[in-house]
């Protein structure tokens, strides 16, 4: 396990370096000079040059990259071109909305998918199975931002149960903050729940047909006892991987949903930054999200190997 862990850690570091390099180089391709952009059209060239030097933009490319990475390692993302405050502050303000939203949606998705997938698998080819599978077909076909709009139409405009958007802040109380995140989380969770329910169903069906399940039944366990005691645990391995992957989908998908509900999270921040050409903010949010995806994938891989020792040997 130690050798496997070291190998995976090395590969994690390489991935992080490669991702940072790609993001840095792509953002370097942007035409135009941030310093002249910040100073405006009629700026004094000497002042622009001074700002360039202050922002470290006059250093050679490799040095700029290393400086940026060194900053990242200390949690210093640089200073926003438009807001003139440290990007880390902007991100810290927004992440307390985006991250809870992602986790809320992931929880909802799992809570919906598990029972649906288990019922469909346990009663294969029954009416319940067909209903679940039919619902999941629609679930994956519905764009989540459209679903979000329909939720607003029903629950905010017609029934007036929820607000149509905005976020009161955590200081307004846990309950009202969670209420503001509920419709966005449902909208985000729907497609992922559909995918997860299908994976749960097919994984459980595969497991139910294994020899050890026949043995369990032959030992005298009832169908449902065998399912709960033996099948479910084995069927969970592929499901866990998908849950890990979904974290990144939800984190990225949140960018769109935040726009539907006017939630001041990372998604709103990145779109405002794009329109204001505040590229240091775009770069920072993108690298943060990509790092999150890489690290979560790494953790899922480790969990996978811990659950199934065969994988440590046959990794490739």
């Amino acid at each position: 396990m130690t050798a496997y862990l070291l190998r995976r850690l090395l590969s994690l570091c390489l991935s992080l370096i490669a991702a940072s390099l790609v993001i840095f180089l792509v953002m370097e391709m942007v035409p135009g000079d941030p310093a002249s952009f910040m100073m405006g059209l009629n700026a004094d060239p000497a002042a622009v040059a001074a700002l360039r030097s202050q922002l470290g933009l006059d250093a050679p490319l490799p040095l700029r990259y290393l400086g940026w990475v060194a900053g990242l390692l200390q949690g210093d993302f640089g200073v926003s071109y438009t807001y003139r405050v440290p990007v880390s502050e902007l991100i810290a303000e927004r992440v307390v909305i985006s991250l809870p939203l992602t986790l809320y949606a992931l929880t909802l998705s799992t809570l919906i998918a598990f029972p649906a997938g288990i019922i469909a698998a346990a009663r294969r080819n029954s009416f319940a199975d067909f209903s679940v599978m039919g619902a999941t077909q629609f679930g994956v076909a519905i764009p989540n931002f459209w679903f979000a709009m329909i939720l607003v139409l029903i629950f905010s405009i017609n029934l007036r149960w929820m607000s149509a958007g905005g976020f009161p802040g955590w200081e307004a109380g846990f309950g009202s903050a969670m209420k503001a995140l509920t419709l966005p989380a449902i909208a985000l969770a729907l497609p992922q729940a559909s995918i997860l329910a299908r994976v749960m169903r097919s994984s459980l069906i595969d497991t139910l047909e294994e020899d050890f399940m026949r043995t369990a039944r032959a030992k005298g366990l009832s169908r449902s006892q065998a399912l709960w005691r033996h099948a479910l645990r084995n069927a969970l391995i592929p499901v866990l991987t998908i849950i890990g992957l979904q974290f990144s989908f939800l984190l990225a998908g949140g960018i769109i949903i935040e726009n539907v509900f006017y939630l001041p999270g990372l998604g709103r921040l990145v779109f405002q930054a794009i329109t204001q050409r505040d590229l240091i903010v775009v770069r920072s949010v993108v690298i943060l999200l990509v790092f999150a995806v890489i690290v979560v994938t790494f953790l899922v891989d480790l969990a996978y190997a811990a659950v199934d020792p065969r994988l440590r040997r046959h990794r490739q």
Partner: protein
Amino acid sequence: MTRSFAPDRSILKMALSHRSLVIGFLLTAFFVLLALLSLVWTPFDPTKLSIATKLKGPSFDHWFGTDHFGRDMFSMIMVGARVSIAVAFVAVGIGIGLGVPLGLYAAARRGSLTDEIIMRGNDLVFAFPALLLAIMITAVFGPGAINAIIAIGIFNIPVFARLARGAALSLWTRDFVLAARVSGKGKARISIEHILPNIANLLIVQGTIQFSLAILAEAALAYVGLGAQPPLPSWGRMLADAQTLISLAPHMALFPGFAIIITVLGLNLMGDGLRDLYDPKLRRGRG
């Protein structure tokens, strides 16, 4: 898997008796025809503004009603179908065109450094969710349909590279490939003449699934303003316009949404059906 893709009569018969395949095909064909028809005819000019008839609900004249500029929604959905399908088609084409050769090459040189580099490169692209890739590309090059195509296309490359490599690896150990090697054929020729035809079915099935994902991705990008730009109508853009008017004119949100759902549903059903057809083992429990 080794069956060739030539549709002989028994496959055709099986296909016609497969309900979800037929429904999926019909739904997809409907939107493709709608898109093609929009090239020569739409009930109204989809870019023509008519403030006098703005925000009208569905009627005999305007089947799906009109938007806040009085444009005919049905005509806009027809042209939107064209944009969606074109973007998805080219994006999946990029994925297949670059991903499959990469995957075949990696499989032919399995275990080599090139194989390792290609696969790690794939992992790296996978770490960038399509949307983030699009955001970066748009931040650099500006929004537009072409950049949406590039972003979705890049995202598709590792999908097809992994699929092609995985499928090709198992074929390289088969006798018919060994026979081809004994007869003196090179790795490139074997990949093209023997491996590719045998993985075509898998690629077509995956292509259908990726096509539906690309339609969803295009709609999402257009919705946040990173896709096709006005006055070119696109489904995502129409939904963005509808958002602030949803209580006044819900039809503006409903119809483009239905168009996306039906198209994606059609493609998914078709993908499931094709998969069943080519791999009956999977018929019972697709994830």
